[in-house]
């Protein structure tokens, strides 16, 4: 019966291509939306993940960086440095502002870095300096290219002119980019002397970041302390919790479209093979055998559709950035598992539609020439 399903499916290649393509596109809807959100999750946690810090200290009650504000007095840095297990502490200043060049405005996390900062700077620099000096800025390369900014050009940040002395990689997301200036400039422009936004902590070799984080939390008042992984997880949760409803709605629509395409394919192909099925019945095949053939056909089509959908999604992950978009798609294992499960349900439900057709088939019909 599987062989029959196989032959039924591959006999008409054009129909196979259209049905597999339809299912593939419906699954692509689900896969690509998941990939968009997974990509955004990775992008917005990139700064934290590549910060090189083991532990992040923020204002009490502040668990996130994105869409959040944190302020810590100078004294906290001293107290954190004194905690056993802490190797070094780098304070950073942070806010969201624009990198302005001519008429082009790009939203960016502006990071104020101390001179010779050990952590929190750009992790990959394609050209120029890796730490900003006075009146200097390091901005994202893709943003620079899009706006036509070259090394040595002046950009406006926080209302002041900065010379671009470095271009960083991997620091742009769909939402914003990261720009680095010196802490002295940041303080001069914002007037927040003696305060920091976050403290980046490196622990001594052999020390556990979790233990040191717990120690800092216990010994320093009015702060929230998280390991780098914990802090990044909190950021990912923002994207996940914000997108849950949108993803659910889109998944449902994708599922229904996939179901419609598959049901249409299975139905039309069963219909066009009425004579063959009648012949099989006349030769003694049971209804169950024929149902299994239809189900096998549906499963095979959906497997092909799933594979094509996956290949298309992977292609999109490569093609979309080429068109200059900061949209980064990333296929996750969880998404693959979900779409595979959806595919199985689509195959099973769509195979139910022709049951009535098969059950109602009269074996004698084949001899009557219908």
């Amino acid at each position, binding site marked *: 019966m599987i062989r029959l399903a196989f032959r039924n499916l591959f006999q008409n290649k054009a*129909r196979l291509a*259209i049905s597999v393509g339809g299912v593939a596109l419906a699954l692509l809807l689900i896969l690509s939306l998941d990939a968009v959100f997974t990509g955004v999750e990775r992008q917005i946690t990139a700064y934290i993940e590549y910060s090189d810090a083991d532990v992040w200290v923020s204002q*009490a009650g*502040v668990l996130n960086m994105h869409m959040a*504000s944190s302020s810590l007095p100078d004294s906290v840095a001293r107290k954190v440095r004194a905690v056993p297990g802490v190797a070094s502490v780098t304070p950073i200043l942070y806010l969201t502002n624009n990198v302005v060049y001519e008429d082009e405005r790009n939203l960016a996390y502006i990071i104020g870095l101390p001179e010779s900062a050990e952590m929190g700077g750009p992790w990959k620099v394609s050209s120029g300096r890796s730490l900003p000096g006075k009146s200097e800025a390091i901005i994202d390369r893709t943003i620079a290219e899009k706006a036509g900014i070259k090394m040595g050009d002046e950009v406006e940040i*926080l209302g002041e002119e900065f010379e671009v002395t470095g271009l960083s990689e991997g620091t742009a997301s769909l939402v914003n980019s990261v720009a680095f200036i010196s802490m002295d400039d940041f303080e001069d422009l914002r007037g927040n002397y003696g305060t920091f936004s976050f403290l980046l902590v490196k622990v001594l070799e052999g020390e556990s970041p979790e233990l040191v984080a717990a120690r800092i939390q216990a010994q320093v008042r009015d702060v929230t302390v998280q390991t780098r992984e914990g802090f990044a997880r909190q950021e990912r*949760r*923002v994207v996940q*919790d914000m997108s849950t409803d949108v993803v659910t709605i889109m998944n449902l629509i994708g599922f229904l479209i996939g179901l419609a395409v598959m049901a249409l394919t299975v139905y039309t192909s069963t219909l066009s093979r009425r004579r063959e099925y009648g012949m099989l019945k006349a030769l003694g095949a049971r209804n169950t055998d024929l149902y299994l053939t239809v189900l096998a056909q549906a499963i095979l089509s959906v497997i092909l559709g799933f594979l094509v959908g996956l290949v298309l999604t992977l292609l999109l992950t490569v093609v*979309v950035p080429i068109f200059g978009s900061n949209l980064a798609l990333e296929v996750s294992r969880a998404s693959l598992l979900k779409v595979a499960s959806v595919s199985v349900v689509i195959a099973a439900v769509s195979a139910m539609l022709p049951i009535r057709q098969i059950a109602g088939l009269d074996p004698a019909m084949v001899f009557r020439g219908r």
Partner: protein
Amino acid sequence: MSLARRNLFQDKTRLALSIGGVALAVMLILVLKGFLAGMNRQITSYLDRSPGSIVVAEEDVVNLLGATSLLPEGVDEKAERIRGVEEVTPILSQFIILELHEKKQPAYMVGYDPELGGGPWQLVAGREPRSKKEMVFDRVLAQRHNLTLGDRVEVMGQDFTIVGLSSGTTSWMTSFFFVRKQDAENLLLAPGATSFLLLTTSDGADLDKILKRFNDFSDVNALTKREMAANDLKLFARIFSAPLKLMVGIAFLVGTMIVGLIIYTATVERQREYGVIKAIGGKNRFLYQVVVTQALFASIAGSFLGILLANGTAQWIMSARPQFLIVFDPVDSGQALLAGLGMALIASIFPTRVVARLAPAEVFRK
């Protein structure tokens, strides 16, 4: 025409499935567009309803929701002295991530002085904050988390009591909540700080002149509320347009595939009949017309059904998830019909080639 109609209507299940498939694809396109239009309306709700016609921000800040703004000290006093400025409303605002029932909920906090305005424009229950650590919370967000007047919400580690519920302050992405400006200053550890000034001008005042006066001051940027709202829209459009275009493009392809599938199978099934028509002198043009008419019918019917489905689905989504606002523009419905036409034309290409290659003699060989 009658041949095309009969071809299509002969198998009603197949026709229903194909129309349903196109309808789903069109519905998806419309819901996505309506969703974006609704979000745009929600994004500018504070600027649309807050007092004044001019916003004064920190230099280089042109958005309310995009960038952090911190005005230099004394700007409010300078503003009061400018001719034509009637009222000055300072606010301190910041995005905050709330943790509600272990879910992260981004919200936009507006710290305001209840006597000067800038707070909620429509209270549906309770009152404005009067004393320390009181807040007006968005009604929809409160409902979603079973919060009501008197309940407490943790903001940056401090507990605030809900004393009022506001309407028109929600969006799926972020809702607004309101506290006294002094409380916002304490939360952000920024005593005396102001993010924006909302300026109400006297009747007949020259807005351009007032804007110019402000922009002569250093470290500030003054713009009309309308300009700032447009900037916020532009910012969010930039973020959402790429994923949205991707989804709409896929939906269009899916619709085309569905129409293609149905027309192709209908054409192949009737190959013999088409061969007979050719054999008795029927021209290819006539057969193309039959194929395209079938495709057009399935697409247009699917598009109309899609428009109806989109309206129904939007109502269902908005009642099940009130944080979503889905707004349909009649232009979008027109575009959906055009998309249906596009799907029909593209879907007809392959079946017309099948018809064109058909040899009239084939019918006699079979």
